[in-house]
Structure formats: structure tokens, C-alpha cells
């Protein structure tokens, strides 16, 4: 009885503890007594992951999950250092910045895993049976419908650049996006944008610079600012987080750009020499399994490769068939994005265009 109360208490308390960063994990105790630990180091917002973690524990009641949350760059830095030093770091790494996971796998920091579930994964979402993509998340525009009039709603990247140019005074300081200096996924999306269309990307960057774009480390902060009314528009926001925010704040609206939409597969990787290898494999299999994918579509990440867009999202009926989806393929080409020099220069150029040399990351909007 006492245990039940304790469990219930934890159940209620857990979401509140979601702010843990780095070495303070959120613990999801096992549902049964015989327990195996599973250390998940993730650059994924806990609220998104939580339904999956809880459902996994239904399937695997003997596993206690320790969830360590990071920002993408910090996760990569920690994992890379641990791998180079031969130290152990957790059992499984989750990150939206798959290029960083690719780099880790290429450097030999991953353990391969083959199972019926991994066999079913799309080729572009599985590298060497080491890096697996387990979600399907379009990068979208978010706007506050109270502030942005219907005729202003941008439906493509060019529209957005044009809008910022046309109504620069209205939107000055009201548009937010990733700070790619702080966010690995922000960098990956920007890099992929640049590779999609150089001219439109250049124009968009220039427009955002003139509109005094607000940059943040994380989607959640941008979404909070939009919810709070400080920002009107968000660019390169992951559809999953945005949809979760939209469910809570109905005045938020999501647009899936119709010229092209980058689609990201959030990556999972089992650490080499993971102490709880079996548990890690079970969790990975669960993520890739039909049940895991269903929970992911219904409760965690909302978008799926097959089937229509979720309700209330402005865009083509289905991403895959419309042809606008540009999946970021999990493969060696991501290593080009991870080249140190390339990355430094790309970020330097980005910062230069966006802020000139005067501004520093994290500047507040006026």
C-alpha cells in the first residue's frame, strides 16, 4: 500500500521534475520489483518523451528509467568526450541532432543492434544498425493567430522572406528561431535549408536579420515566447513540439511550408559498452515497434511518415505524397555538416548575416 502511494506520488511529481538537466536525472521507477536500470541521455523534451517512457514501462515493468535531459550540443559534447576517454555514458542516446549521432557512430561510439524491429526501419533512417531514426518530424512555421492576420500567413520560405520584407515594422523583433550556435538541431536544420535553396535561404536570413530575429537555444523557449505573446512567428520549429504547444494554446497555428519541408528523424543510438545493453535494446526495439510508433504518433510526436497531417495543421494532406517532404537522410552525408571547419564557418556566416558583429547570442528582443 505504501509503495502504491509512493508510486502515485512519483507519478504526479514526475512531470514537475522535468527541468532536470545533465547529471540530475528524472527517475521513472520500475513498475515491478525486479529492476534493471536504463540510463537514457536525451536531447529531447521530457514531456514529449514521457508517454513513450511510461508506455515502455507497461511493456517492460522491470526497468527503471533514469532520464538525463540535455541540449543537443551539450549531449554531443558529453558523449564525445566520454567516448574518447573510454568512459561509459548511459545506455542509449536520443537526439534530434542526428548529424551528431552520426558523428558519434562514425567515431565508433555506438553498438550495433539488429532485430526484427530494426529490419523494418526505412533505409534512410538506419545507418549501420547503429543510428536509428524513430520519429518523423517536419520543420514548420508557427504563428500566433491573434497577431498574424490570415493574409499574412506564409506558406513557403519565400513567402516568409517576402512577409518580413513587406511588413518589417510589424514583425520586427517578433520572429524567433533556433540559435544555431547553441543548438545542434538548429544548426542541422539551417545547414539543410542552405542546401535546399541557396537564394531563398540567403534572402530569408537577410530578412530575418533586418527584422531583428530572436534566437533561442531551444524550441520550447521560442514556443513559450509565442504563447506569451512576445513573438508572433516561429521559424524552423519542430512540428512535434509545436503541435504539443498548439494543443494547449489553441491560438497557435502551424504551417507546413509547401515549397519544401525538412523532415527530421530523431535519432537513437546505443552506447558502445552500454552497461545495460539488453535493456537498451529492448527500449530501442520498443521505439521502433508498431506500438511505440503508435504512441509516438498519438501522444508524443504527433506526425508520422504514413497517413495525414494531424488535425489543425495548415499544409498538404499528406507530407509524403505531396512531395514537399525533404527528409534529412541518416547517412554519411551528415558528416559533412559535422566537419569542424565547415560548422565554424557556417555558424560564423550565419551570425554575421543575422547580427553583424555587434550582437551576441541570447540577446533579448526589444
Amino acid at each position: 500500500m505504501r509503495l502504491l502511494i509512493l508510486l502515485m506520488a512519483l507519478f504526479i511529481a514526475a512531470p514537475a521534475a522535468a527541468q532536470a538537466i545533465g547529471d540530475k536525472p528524472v527517475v521513472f521507477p520500475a513498475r515491478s520489483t525486479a529492476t534493471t536500470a536504463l540510463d537514457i541521455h536525451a536531447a529531447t523534451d521530457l514531456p514529449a518523451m514521457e508517454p513513450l517512457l511510461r508506455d515502455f514501462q507497461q511493456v517492460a515493468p522491470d526497468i527503471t528509467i533514469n532520464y538525463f535531459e540535455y541540449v543537443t550540443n551539450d549531449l554531443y559534447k558529453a558523449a564525445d568526450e566520454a567516448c574518447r576517454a573510454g568512459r561509459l555514458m548511459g545506455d542509449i542516446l536520443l537526439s534530434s541532432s542526428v548529424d551528431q549521432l552520426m558523428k558519434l557512430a562514425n567515431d565508433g561510439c555506438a553498438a550495433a543492434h539488429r532485430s526484427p524491429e530494426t529490419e523494418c526501419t526505412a533505409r534512410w533512417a538506419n545507418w549501420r544498425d547503429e543510428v536509428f531514426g524513430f520519429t518523423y518530424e517536419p520543420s514548420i512555421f508557427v504563428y500566433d493567430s491573434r497577431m498574424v492576420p490570415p493574409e499574412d500567413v506564409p506558406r513557403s520560405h519565400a513567402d516568409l522572406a517576402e512577409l518580413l520584407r513587406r511588413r518589417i515594422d510589424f514583425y520586427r523583433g517578433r520572429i524567433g528561431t533556433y540559435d544555431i550556435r547553441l543548438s545542434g538541431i538548429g544548426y542541422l536544420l539551417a545547414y539543410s535549408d542552405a542546401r535546399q535553396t541557396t537564394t531563398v535561404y540567403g534572402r530569408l536570413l537577410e530578412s530575418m536579420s533586418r527584422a531583428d530575429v530572436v534566437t533561442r537555444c531551444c524550441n520550447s523557449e521560442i514556443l513559450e515566447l509565442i504563447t506569451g505573446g512576445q513573438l508572433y512567428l516561429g521559424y524552423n520549429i519542430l512540428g512535434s513540439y509545436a503541435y504539443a504547444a498548439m494543443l494547449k494554446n489553441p491560438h497557435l497555428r502551424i504551417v507546413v511550408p509547401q515549397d519544401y519541408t525538412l523532415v527530421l528523424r530523431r535519432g537513437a543510438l546505443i552506447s558502445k559498452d552500454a552497461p545495460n545493453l539488453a535493456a537498451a535494446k529492448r527500449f530501442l526495439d520498443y521505439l521502433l515497434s508498431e506500438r511505440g510508433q503508435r504512441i509516438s504518433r498519438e501522444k508524443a510526436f504527433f506526425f508520422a511518415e504514413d497517413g495525414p497531417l494531424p488535425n489543425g495543421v495548415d499544409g498538404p494532406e499528406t507530407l509524403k505524397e505531396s512531395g514537399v517532404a525533404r527528409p534529412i537522410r541518416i547517412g554519411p552525408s551528415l558528416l559533412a555538416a559535422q566537419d569542424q571547419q565547415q560548422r565554424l564557418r557556417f555558424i560564423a556566416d550565419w551570425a554575421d548575416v543575422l547580427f553583424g558583429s555587434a550582437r551576441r547570442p541570447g540577446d533579448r528582443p526589444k
Partner: protein
Amino acid sequence: MTRNDSSLFTRLAVLVSLVLCVGATALASAAWYYARAAADDAYDRVLKGAALQMADSLTVDGGELIVDLPASAFELLGLAERDRLFYRIVDPEGKTLTGYADLASGSDLSAVRSDPVVQNGSYSGDPVRIVVVARAFSDPALSGWAHVIVAQTTEARRALAAELTTRAVLLVLIMSVMALAGTALAIRYALQPVWRLGAALNSRDSQDLKPIEVDMPREMRPFVGSINHFMGRLERRVSQLERFIADAAHQIRTPLTALTAQVDLLGHDRLGPEARQHLERVQQRAEELARLTNQLLSHAMVIHRADAVRLAPVNLVDIARRAFRAAVPITLSPDIIVSFEADESDPRVLGDAVSLREAIVNVIDNALRHGTLSRLEVKVSSQAGNAVIEVEDDGPGIPREAWESVTQRFATPKQNGGTAGLGFSIAAEVASAHGGTLGFRERNEHGFVVVLTLPLLTGEGD
């Protein structure tokens, strides 16, 4: 030659399999070698292409070497889907600009100029294929050779090599199995004449020393020639021997007749009882000797005729009746009942009348001497395509185990003792020369029967 490889087939099969095994192994090794080379070549092109693209992307800006790695180079390398890749870009001063600083080039960088250098190496414990590409810069601010080193793990090329090898080995195996099966068939076919020759020799009559006339391939002809030559010699020897025996028997006959006459002249009356007994024995032995001599002559004649006389259709009843008359002596005890019986089938056979008569005489004579106690019956009939002459007596008969031996020369039923004879031997000889047999029928309450079976003349010829 040991018993194990006494089979030509086994020897050839083992030898050919051995050659095929060695050949298949050699081919498989060659296939593996070439598959590796081909896989290396294919993936080396990709590797070089990617490295050249990377080298091409290097630019000089304000005296600084700028690296703008093209994603297409990585995509190119990504064609080897499962392979990890490592790279290092070195500026003209030998400083690593970007990439994996601990990636060893495996060779002297300064030696690499315009041509890409590809070699094997290892990185972080895994075997890798390394390419080094150089690019010259002659900017006033920066001049010299910059190098791009790209390494890729070898999983894809090993997989390709393994696949190519497996396929080649499969082909070699199929080919080997086919060759082996073909060889087995060929050996069997080639050895067939040997079997035929063996069968021809085996099916021959033991007396038949005529040359073999089986169609033989060229390679077998010397062998057959030798056999025929040997048989010819043997035949000459045998006929010499037979002629000698016939001559000898003939020569013995004259003095023997004289001897018998002289013995008869001695007269019983003048002798004492003991001497008379001796004389009787001498007469008995002389008579046996005469008979034996006659049989020898008869045997020689039969054998000679078997080779020399053309067979003609003859009436067996006539021959048998004449033989019956000749064989049953006038002096036969009146207590013995003899009879001759022929059914109305009137059997005709293709044969030599003289030999046949001799054979029947000998069988009847044998029965009278060793079998008959009170009865002798001779029957001639036709049964199922054969003419059958049965000679039945009421004697003790010959036990089954002795049947085979009595048809050989100088063997007689033991119980009766007495002279060794050629009677059955002559009859058997004649029977086989006519394609028939000499057989016996087990003694029953009726009596013991000797059966001479001859094939009936078919087609009712002249």
C-alpha cells in the same frame, strides 16, 4: 596392384576427382583474389572521386586555406552504405586543418603529388582503405601542396568481394559436379567393351577355343589379339593332345585284342581253381581296358566331330533306337527287362547323328553296368520345345551331390566301384555341343533317371 584400386572405374574416378578438387580450389582462390581486386578497384574509384571532390573544394581566401566540404563527396562515400569514413585535410605547412587529426596517411605526404595514392591501413583498430590526394596552390600568400586524406572502412568492399567469390565458387562447384558426373559416364562408357569382352569370354563353352569375335574399340584390339593368339596356341595344343590320345588308344587296341584272344586260348579246363580265378580276373580287366580304350576313342571322336561336322536335322528316335540296340548286349542276362519307348511326336533335332548315338550308347551302357538290377527303360519324347531322352534303371542311382562330378572324366558312382569311365563325360560333351544338357532325376520308388535334353529343331526344316 592392391584389391582396393583393382577397379579401373574407381582409379579413374578418384584421379579425376582429385584433379577437379585441386582445380576447383585453385579457381576458387583465383575467384577470391580477383573479386577482392575488383571490389577494391570499384570502391577505390569512389574513394578517389570523393577525395578529389574534397580537394577541389579547397580555396584560398586572404592567405588562408578555406575548407568547404561538399556534402556530395560524403554522399558518394555513402554508396558504401555501412562503411565508416574518416578524413583529414592538411595544409601546405603540414598542419591539420580539419577532420581526424590522428588519421595516419600511411605514406610520406610530400611524395604524393598529382596522382592519388591508395593503400590499405587501419584506423581506430579497424582496417581501412586510405586515399591521399594532393592539390597545388600557388597563391602569393599561400603556396605549396595541400593534402586530403580520406579513409573508409572495408565492409562494403569485403561484402562485394564475398558475394562475387560466392557466386564464382558456386559456378565452379556446379561445373565440377557436372565434370565429375560427365567423367563417371564417360568412364563407364569407355569401359563397356571390357565388360562386353568379359561377358563374351564368360559365356563361352569351356571347350570353345575359337577366336573371339566381339566388336572392340581400337585400344582394346591388342588385348583381344593376345587372347586370340593365346587361344589359338592352346587350341593347337589341345588338338595335338587329343590326336595323341586317339592315336594312343588306337595303337593300344590292336595288341589288346590280341591279348584278349590269347587269354581266351588259355582254356579254363587245364587250370587249377586258383589259377582259373586269376585268369578270370585278367579277362575282366582286359575287357575293362578294351572298353576304356573304346571310350577314349569315342571321346576323341565326339570332340573332333563337334568342331568338324556340320550339324544336320536328324530324327532322334531313330538314333536312340539304334543306340539302344548297340548298347544292349546279346549276352545280357535274361532276367533283366529292357524296353524302348518313343512317343508319336517324332522329335527332330539339329545334330550330328554319330555323336548323338555315341552319347546315348554311353548313357545306356553306364546304366546297364552300374545301375540296372532288373529293369532298364529308354524313353524318347518331346517336352516344351525340347527333345528328351530318359534312361531309367532300378539301380541305387547317383546321389545328388555327385551329379556334377560324374559328368567329368574318369568319375563313376562310388557305390559300384569298378572302372572309372568316360560315359557321362562323353554324353555331357555331346549335349553341350548341341546346346542341350545332361541331367539326372532324383531316385524315387520307380527308379533313377538320366535325362538327355536337346533343343528341338524349330521351323521344321528339311
